[in-house]
């Protein structure tokens, strides 16, 4: 039963809520309790724009439990416009055609479900930004 652990992360997973350091304006995702750049502990919550560029990626062909039906799927690290890097699945793409530097945009998707009677878990994924 993964419900509490899933539920706790909803603001980040659904809305890309990040922390902006009040002192040095460093944007951190996911949040930390002190700024790795200036050690300040004062943050405000912001929503990331959802736009970024692909830093690196791979195609998962042997998946962990819960992801078998999606194989093969692309995963990558996306550098967001605001600065932080996010690891996520890249969906709605031809994985073989992804290139470093490709523009990426947030989409809300299903990640997996906790068995076919359990809770359905949703979160951000990214898709190539092709204007649709």
């Amino acid at each position, binding site marked *: 039963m993964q419900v509490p*652990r899933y539920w706790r*992360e909803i603001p980040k997973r659904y809305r890309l809520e990040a922390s902006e350091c009040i002192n040095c304006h460093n944007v951190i995702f*996911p949040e930390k309790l002190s700024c790795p750049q200036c050690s300040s502990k004062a943050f405000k919550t912001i929503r990331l724009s959802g736009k970024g560029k692909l*830093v*690196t*990626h*791979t*195609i*998962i*062909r*042997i*998946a*962990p*439990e*819960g*992801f078998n039906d*999606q194989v093969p*799927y692309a*995963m*990558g*690290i996306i550098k967001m416009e605001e600065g932080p*890097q*996010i*690891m*996520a*699945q890249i969906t709605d793409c031809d*994985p073989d055609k992804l290139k*470093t530097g490709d523009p990426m945009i947030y989409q809300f998707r299903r*990640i*997996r479900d906790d068995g076919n009677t359990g809770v359905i*878990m949703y*979160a951000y*994924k990214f898709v190539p930004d092709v204007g649709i």
Partner: protein
Amino acid sequence: MRKVAIVGVGLIKWGELWEKSLRQIAAEAIFECLEDAGTDRIDAMTIGNMSGGLFNGQEHLSSLIPDFMGLKNIPAMRIESACASGGMAVRTAYLEVASGLSDFAVAVGVEKMTDISGQEATYALATAADQDHEAFHGVTFPGLYAMMAKAHMDRYGTTREDLSSVVIKNHKNGSLNPNAQFPFEITGDQVLRSPMVADPLRLLDCSPISDGAAAVMLTTLEEAEKLKKQPVLISGIGHATDSLALSSRNDILKMEAVEQSASKALEMAGKSIEDIDFAEVHDCFSIAEIMILEALGVVPPGEGGKASSEGLTALNGKFPVNPSGGLKSKGHPVGATGVAQICEAVAQLKGEAGKRQLKNVKAGLTQNMGGSAGSSVVHILEVI
């Protein structure tokens, strides 16, 4: 702080040990180590184990292992730092002896990974990544290292052949190691024909799922002398951590925990990397060995792949790496790996490494890391 030396090692043959349990392989390695050390005195026992809970449904190894050995009243503790658990167990045993709290401390590393399915093991291993921000999204360890490999290829021009050169070299070394899980050579073609796991990493770029255990006995130089054993001195220890999630790093190609742990260990030993004759490093994937070479300062950033292809790290190269066969060929029972690296360094330094024996080696380095290098521990060992 007292000087600490290794006076005994115990290592069983690794592999898929269907007949043997977690407690059995750990106990066998310790008994072998005690025999090698010539003492049965245990003032403290440290147990490196990543996940008895997930692999075997068994926690509380501190009671389990001495109990199965038929011992009571042993101050034993389990140490966990994912795949660096073994190295951390040795470090903890070192602290026991160096501090004066214990005179004889045995460090055992153990993992019994084949009690569950491959997919369940993949899940258990993925708990060494950030569950909420990496594993939740479906990434695997091969996936994380594949992303590093892709970035390394993009930025530095590292090639498929460079990755394969690590695999070929480690299997060649492992073919000379009777304790290795896969003691045979493989070719570049075999690597290329193996199934893709996470592009660009293929099955043969990845270390295997293994059962195994290893143990070392640590004591003071005075006690070593009494035992009439040739001691191998632990002259430096470094330990560092980095972000758990790969994506949190400013530069995903910089293994800062490895850099920091190595420079601390070298500083403690009063040495530079040029003074080191060989290394056992954490080649959980082919790309890992390439990046570790760079992080240790053996080669400048970006040149690890080329250096491997050119033979720098071969048994007869200028800086031999993983003479044991590494995680790739010897096997990777995660909690045991860091301890076994030290067993290999001791064997090399004492001239007991058989067909894979390096010539004229006086100082060796072991590097053991957890996850995607979220933690790393380095030991410097010397013959005296």
